[in-house]
């Protein structure tokens, strides 16, 4: 899957009940789950939330391809963490060997800690992916506004998201044109082509800014963009269900 194909967030299907959950509830649920994962000193809490994210993802009819591809990078991180912790953490040697006169040692505690950290990464990233694939950016921005995130930041974020796809299309078109003309045949030409691509992207940004600003002024823009509000209190049922789903995680954290 190309990196550009990952520029996708879900939440567009309004018939799915999980997509329709109030974004404030979803953000708080994700943050609470991540907090419990970070506080946990055992494997069961992150494993629970990893499984929960997968189950909720299936219920939300998430594209499993999008879900799995996003887990590739964290998987690489998990591998590196396992190596680092195995050699650098612990006192009980599990395996010692000799390489070029050095005697590196793999420690039992380090392997356990590496597995714990790996599960924590997997669990946390799964909750993050669940949040991003069941919510639209506008809904998330509205929820952030409710949580007193500064308006200036929200407006810039909204504009960045809005024009991300405009510039992505421009970048991909230029990239393909360069590739067709052998602009990436070796490292030197690749570098030159990427530098030109980045430079033209910023030129395009400058030109687009002028056009966009003029269009916005004609439509009444005077320096402030409207950011939609999330009004009212969220439905009770999703809140109750969210708490119920968090309780086992809390019990596993406290009880084990």
């Amino acid at each position, binding site marked *: 899957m190309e990196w550009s194909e990952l520029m996708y967030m879900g939440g567009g299907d309004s018939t799915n009940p999980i997509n329709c959950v109030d974004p404030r509830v979803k953000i708080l649920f994700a943050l609470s789950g991540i907090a419990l*994962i970070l506080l946990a000193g055992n494997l069961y809490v992150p494993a629970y939330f990893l499984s929960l994210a997968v189950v909720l993802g299936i219920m939300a009819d998430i594209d499993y391809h999008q879900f799995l591809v996003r887990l590739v*990078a964290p998987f690489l991180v998990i591998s590196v963490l396992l190596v680092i912790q195995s050699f650098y953490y612990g006192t009980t040697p599990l395996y010692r060997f000799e390489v070029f006169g050095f005697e590196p*040692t793999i420690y039992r505690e380090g392997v356990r800690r590496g597995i714990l950290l790996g599960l924590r990464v997997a669990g946390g990233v799964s909750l993050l992916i669940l949040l991003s694939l069941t919510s639209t950016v506008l809904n998330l921005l509205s929820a952030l506004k409710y949580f007193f995130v500064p308006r200036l930041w929200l407006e810039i974020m909204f504009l960045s998201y809005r024009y991300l796809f405009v510039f992505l299309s421009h970048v991909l078109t230029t990239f393909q044109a360069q590739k067709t003309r052998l602009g990436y045949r070796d490292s030197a030409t690749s570098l030159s082509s990427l530098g030109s691509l980045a430079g033209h992207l910023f*030129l395009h940004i400058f030109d687009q800014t002028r056009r966009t600003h003029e269009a916005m002024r004609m439509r009444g823009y005077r320096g402030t963009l409207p950011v939609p509000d999330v009004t009212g209190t969220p439905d009770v049922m999703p809140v109750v269900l969210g708490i119920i789903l968090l309780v086992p995680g809390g019990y596993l954290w406290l009880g084990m």
Partner: protein
Amino acid sequence: MSWLLFLYILLGLFFIPEPARAMHISEGILPFNQAVIWTVLGGGCVLFALWKMKRSTDGNSAFKPFLGMVGAGVFLISAMPIPVPFAGTVSHPAGTGIAAILVGPAATVVLTSITLLLHALFLAHGGLSTLGADIFAMGVLGGYAGYITYRSGRKMGIGQGVSAFLAGLAGDWATYVGTSSILALALHGPEHGIGELFTTVLVAFVPTQVPLGILEGIVAVFVVKLLLDRRPEMVRTLTRIVPVLLVGVMLLFSSPGTAQAEDTGQAWPGVDVAVVEKTAEEHGQKAAEPLIPLEGDLLLFAFLSAGCIGGFVVGYQYHKLFVVETDDVTDNNERKHDEDQPTGED
């Protein structure tokens, strides 16, 4: 040392032709207390940067759309896969050096926070609990390192291209030094100190980050040169350096000693003894005699004097360093020189 074997294994991992996703700290790596501290620190830096930017956005209605689009541009550049020679892999530029040259360091911090959140949501790079740490490493350290390097280069009369290259390089490497420090703080164990793990992580990053920093510097040169040719007004600074943040960085990186003192249960002996001397002794290096043998209050007085002299010099030159636009002065001088030259018509 086992770090050598670890390095071999890591090099092997990095030689697998997969994108090197080392720019962001993944979700779940930081302990809860450190995640909270970094969130407060990173969030505080963003709030401060927003406050600094408010004056510019209130007076110019085109500034917000411009920033929004630069944010989208920074996101796309930081998501672009760049082939890294010698490492046989691809990696992603930080983009903060280029952004700092274009919009200044404060706006770079804000744009970095937006970019990192989009990375977390779209690509699952980084996370919510590590957002503060990533903002600090990439936005604050990377952005300010790039900006300071660029401005210092221009003030010293170094050309635009070289200054842009150094800014891209400094921004990238500062990001990774920051990330290595944060990871060392989070992942160290009682037997192997923070300094040792920091060195290991930094060395592990070297195969990709040294060439990537150079590549990012070269890309920065291309970008700045192209913009200077077509849109010279884009390459200007819009905000000032905030020395307070630099002091905050120095205070922050003195904190590893606190973690070690908790492990030993004794009063904190200081970073020099707890980290530097301990690591040096483990590697068979003994402390050399100081060139100027000062001790006690006399040594402290010498430090104080050096600080006062340095601070006085910076303060005396403050206007020239941070206020006067070097490009305007250079352009005016060049224009005046051209006007003075005799033409063939005379």
